[in-house]
């Protein structure tokens, strides 16, 4: 057994020795227990922990690790799940009886709440079916064809949450309070306390066992107070009218939300509501849900009013439209009737407006007239036959179109004579006015009021002619030498006048006026003045000048050229007219 020897021993002795037996026993006596413990320790180190040892440590180890982090729970979860599954498969009854105490109350509570809601709605239906209001609703259902149940539902929804209290369950102190905007809420803190007291009172008086649920709901006249309990706070809603079941759910949700979001402030609540200020919007949501439906009730009372207003508006609008249309119609007809050159024969206002009649081509465009009267011409039918109107405006318009007078000329109609006045160029005067045909409705043209504008050059030539006097001896109609010379000048000047006038398209008319001195009888003088004028005419003809339009007048002594100058009056003078 070399193992039993210590290293120094074997190296010291080398081989077996009888006295070594005693030494070995001595060694065993002194070092034996330590050796055995050492061997045991070695064995343990090699073999690892035994189940017995783990069993000793396990509870403490689990507690230690669970307190440190969640690793243990995570690691165990799948095993626990499959273990439960296995257990249920093997013996369902065992696990059912184990969880029954937990499940029972939970299921009971859920069923009780559902039934409470159901009973509330059944109650309200029964109640309403027997009341006068119920009869009215039946009538409404019959009238509208909507099922009675739906009508009841519709009216049962008419309610309003007026106040919502959040109350600390333990102390009854008011945590938060919300109320309808048009309501004055007085002393909510006292009401909150009293509500808690009454809840306790009811619980103590009628349901002494704990966790009976407490006061859920009570009604006073039209008001119902709905209470929803939470572990630390309860919510109480004051509802006017028929509260729907959804409101209960809403309150439950709100209580749960508040407990979730404000769990720390609720747990630490010691009278200071400041950390719970954020609760108020949640309570206000309970109000807001209902104000909208509450409005339906007030609107029902005055339901006819909006309809009446709408009806009145429609009537007003339609009436306004009809009146406007009528005004347009009469306006359009009056406009067409008053227009010269348009004769309205027929006007119809069926589906489309239609106008039939006569129209002078010179008259205004009927479409433009209708448009000016506010009529949409695209939707109007028009049939116009052409005709000639003898109304003065149209006659003048036609004349204007035919003559195209320059700006200085005005046209006027006197009976069937067209009178022109003003000044115009000689060219227009000589061509257009003279050659244009008379427009329909005009029988005669009076141009006497028109002064032709004669160009200066032509006017100078005319003056050359008119300046000349052919003088005669006493009682003579014979031409002497100076007279013949003058005639030669006149003849040349006349030719120049005629040439210039012809260029402008005008005609020159020459008037030869013969005169005498006062001696002798008027009859003689008359004859003598004619002889003198004709002598001049003949002499002009001799000189190759034969004006197309020549008038000879024998004035005798009637229009003397100069008083007291017999020599000047024994003469022939020239007047040139340009036409």
């Amino acid at each position, binding site marked *: 057994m070399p193992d039993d020897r210590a290293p120094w021993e074997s190296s010291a002795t080398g081989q077996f020795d009888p006295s070594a037996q005693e030494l070995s026993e001595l060694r065993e006596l002194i070092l034996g227990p330590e050796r055995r413990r050492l061997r045991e320790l070695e064995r343990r180190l090699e073999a690892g922990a035994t189940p017995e040892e783990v069993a000793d440590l396990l509870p403490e180890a689990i507690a230690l690790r669970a307190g440190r982090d969640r690793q243990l729970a995570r690691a165990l979860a799948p095993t626990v799940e499959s273990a439960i599954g296995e257990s249920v498969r093997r013996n369902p009854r065992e696990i059912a009886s184990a969880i029954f105490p937990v499940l029972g109350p939970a299921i009971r509570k859920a069923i009780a709440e559902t039934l409470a809601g159901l009973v509330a709605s059944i109650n309200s239906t029964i109640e309403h079916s027997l009341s006068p209001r119920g009869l009215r609703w039946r009538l409404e259902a019959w009238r509208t064809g909507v099922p009675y149940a739906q009508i009841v539902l519709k009216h049962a929804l008419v309610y309003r949450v007026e106040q919502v209290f959040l109350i*600390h369950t*333990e*102390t*009854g*102190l*008011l945590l938060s309070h919300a109320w309808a905007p048009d309501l004055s809420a*007085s*002393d909510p*803190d*006292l*009401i909150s*306390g*009293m509500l808690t*007291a*009454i809840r*306790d*009172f009811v*619980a*103590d008086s009628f349901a002494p066992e704990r966790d009976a649920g407490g006061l859920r709901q009570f009604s006073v006249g039209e008001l119902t107070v709905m209470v929803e309990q939470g572990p630390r706070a309860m919510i109480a809603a004051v509802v006017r009218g028929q509260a729907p079941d959804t409101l209960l759910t809403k309150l439950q949700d709100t209580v749960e939300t508040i407990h979730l979001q404000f769990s720390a402030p609720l747990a630490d609540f*010691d*009278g*200071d*509501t*400041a950390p719970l200020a954020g609760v108020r919007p949640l309570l206000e949501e309970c109000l807001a849900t209902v104000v909208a439906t509450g409005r339906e009730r007030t609107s029902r009372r005055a339901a006819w009013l909006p309809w009446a207003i709408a009806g009145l508006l429609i009537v007003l609008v339609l009436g306004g439209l009809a009146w406007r249309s009528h005004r347009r119609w009469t306006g359009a007809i009056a406009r067409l009737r008053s227009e010269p050159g348009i004769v309205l024969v027929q006007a119809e206002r069926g589906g489309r407006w239609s106008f039939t009649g006569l129209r002078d081509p010179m008259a205004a465009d009927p479409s433009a007239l209708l448009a000016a009267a506010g009529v949409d011409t695209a939707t109007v039918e028009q049939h116009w036959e052409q005709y000639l109107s003898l109304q003065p405006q149209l006659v003048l318009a036609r004349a204007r179109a035919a003559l195209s007078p320059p700006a200085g000329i005005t046209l006027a109609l006197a009976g069937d004579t067209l009178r022109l006045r003003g000044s115009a160029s000689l060219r227009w005067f000589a061509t257009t006015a003279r050659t244009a045909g008379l427009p329909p409705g005009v029988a005669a043209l009076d141009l006497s009021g028109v002064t032709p504008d004669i160009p200066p050059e032509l006017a100078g030539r005319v003056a050359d002619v008119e300046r000349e006097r052919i003088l005669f001896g006493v009682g003579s109609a014979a031409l002497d030498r100076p007279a013949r010379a003058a005639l030669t000048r006149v003849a040349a000047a006349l030719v120049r006048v005629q040439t210039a006038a012809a260029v402008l398209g005008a005609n020159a008319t020459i008037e030869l006026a013969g005169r005498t001195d006062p001696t002798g009888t008027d009859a003689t003088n008359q004859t003598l003045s004619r002889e003198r004028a004709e002598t001049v005419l003949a002499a002009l003809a001799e000189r190759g000048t034969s004006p197309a339009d020549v008038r000879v007048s024998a004035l005798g002594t009637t229009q003397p050229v100069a008083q007291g100058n017999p020599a000047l009056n024994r003469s022939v003078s020239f007047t040139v007219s340009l036409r």
Partner: protein
Amino acid sequence: MIQKKVCMVGLFGTGKTSLVQRFVHTLFSERYLSTVGVKIDRKQVELDGTSVTLVLWDLAGRDGQEDITTSYLRGAHAILYVADGTRRETCDQLPELRALVREAAGDVPEVVALNKSDLKERWTITDADEQALASTFDLIRTSAKTGDGVEDAFQRIARATLATREARP
């Protein structure tokens, strides 16, 4: 806003209700005391610039102390006991009453109002009795009739409730 629930406890006829009537804001009538067994009032106390609203639960005092509805005591931040100096038994029963109250409300600040101080000559408790009470309670003499000590009692209650709040971790 800081609110505190204060329960007023005392035997029947100790003048509990009349003690506070002139000093508090009342909404409910006294009928509540005989029906529901509690009447709730409010007392506003200004304390070093802090406004404290004391919600006073006036618990109906009946002939037997066991009649007190202990649910009403739950969550109280302080208790105001009211005893009647002219009726010795109202003082004698205070320790028992206190035990009952503490069972429901826990260990909260307490103030004892020894009422009817205006009728000192008719008191049936001696100065020694009063000394003994003062050794276990925060005692203050009050008079519903003259109003002596009432405001002081509320001040002390309010201060005590705030002190416990601050003392909390």
